[in-house]
């Protein structure tokens, strides 16, 4: 009996993970397609396109975690009000940058490639954007929230460059010479 229980537990763990992984791929696939459709829709103005595509991607980006990682050690020294202000400003900045990039990749083809699971609570999903002269690799990085079973994006790598890592470095350099409130302003 005990053996059977263990076996079932194991099987169910494996099976439930498989479902999660499949979900991520299909959901991301449909989201990317949706964004591309929005971008190709000639009836929409540029602004509408941007708002719509941000809304499609919104639920899966964890801006709070991204903001926190990007500040590194400094995060712990902030008051909760400052944390909120920073997260708010950072989210705006990221969205703005995302929209700006979308504008460039209006008519391009996206291929969803491999999904990998380097750790039990990490999943990476590789996309390929076929541009006019080059191919770009985009990797979405997901993490699993503890105690829950929700997967969220905490970083995006464009051609091997981590967005969060880049901000982390920049913020740290900035804070060496300037104050936190100046950083907030510059965002």
């Amino acid at each position, binding site marked *: 009996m005990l053996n059977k229980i263990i076996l079932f537990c194991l099987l169910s763990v494996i*099976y439930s993970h498989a479902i999660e992984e499949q979900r991520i791929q299909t959901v991301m696939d449909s989201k990317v397609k949706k964004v591309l459709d929005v971008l190709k829709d000639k009836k929409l103005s540029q602004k509408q396109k941007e708002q719509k595509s*941000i809304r499609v991607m919104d*639920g899966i980006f964890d801006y709070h975690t991204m903001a926190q990682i990007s500040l590194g050690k400094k995060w712990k020294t902030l008051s909760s009000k400052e944390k909120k202000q920073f997260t708010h400003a950072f989210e705006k900045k990221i969205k703005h940058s995302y929209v700006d990039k979308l*504008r460039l990749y209006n008519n391009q083809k996206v291929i969803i490639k491999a999904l990998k699971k380097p750790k039990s609570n990490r999943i990476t999903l590789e996309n390929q954007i076929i541009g*006019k002269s080059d191919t770009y690799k985009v990797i979405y990085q997901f993490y699993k929230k503890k105690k829950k*079973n929700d997967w969220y994006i905490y970083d995006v790598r464009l*051609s091997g460059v981590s967005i969060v890592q*880049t901000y982390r*470095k920049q913020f740290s350099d900035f804070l060496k010479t300037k104050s936190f409130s100046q950083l907030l302003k*510059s965002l």
Partner: protein
Amino acid sequence: MKFILLVCALLFLQACSSKEVTTPLITEDKTSSSSPEEYTKECNSCDEDKNELTDEFDNEFEDEEKNIIDPLSGYNSMMTTFNDAVIIYALNPVAEAYGYIIPEPLRIGVSNAIKNINFPVRFVNNILQGKFQNSSDELERFIINSTIGIAGLMDPAAKYKNIPAHREDFGQTLGYYGVGPGFHIVLPFLGPSNVRDSIGIIADGYVSPLINVKDIVSYKIPDNLAQTIGITTLYFINRTSLNLGEYESIKKDAIDLYPFLRDIYEQKRVSEIDE
């Protein structure tokens, strides 16, 4: 009986877990929590979670205070400003005019042709790294694209036979064998580089048919330095005309341009070498 109950319980749990997964991902039109007030709600429930995760993420990302050895930072910063001005005031307007005159399919053809001619660089470096399948892909691509693809203007190898190009240069080859990047150097016109990759550019120049080298004339297309510069300039103008606005968009993410460009260049190279 116990057994059936157990199975039911397990199935139930499993259904729950898979349902939970769908919630955050599937709600497509969930509006963003963009006001600071809404963050309060969100954060009260997740702060504990966050603390546990912080350490894990800190290990995953590079230490933000890590010092980079950058003896040329003064010169590099100046050269970045120079290159930036060249791109904004010379390259972009010229590429825009060029793109206005020459239709896009032809410009894509030029881009393909230049890549095709540079095949020996990729071929040799793939071999040097022991990536023989990639080199044979490259050889096949070169043969198909040079013939059916009309001197490389088209890329039927990728389009119909699904053979991708495998970009490798000598800087990557050195990195593959464990040579570190050395300090960062911003090259005039060519942009960010480092000691290792600058050596790589020179070595690749010997192999590339598009760069003339004294005493090696057998398969080199340009006969002298002026022609080499001409071809390289055409390459840059053509590439920029196909990616107008890209540099400006990247630049907008920078707080301070030079360290930003240095950082993304070094990150990109690390990931290219890892592949």
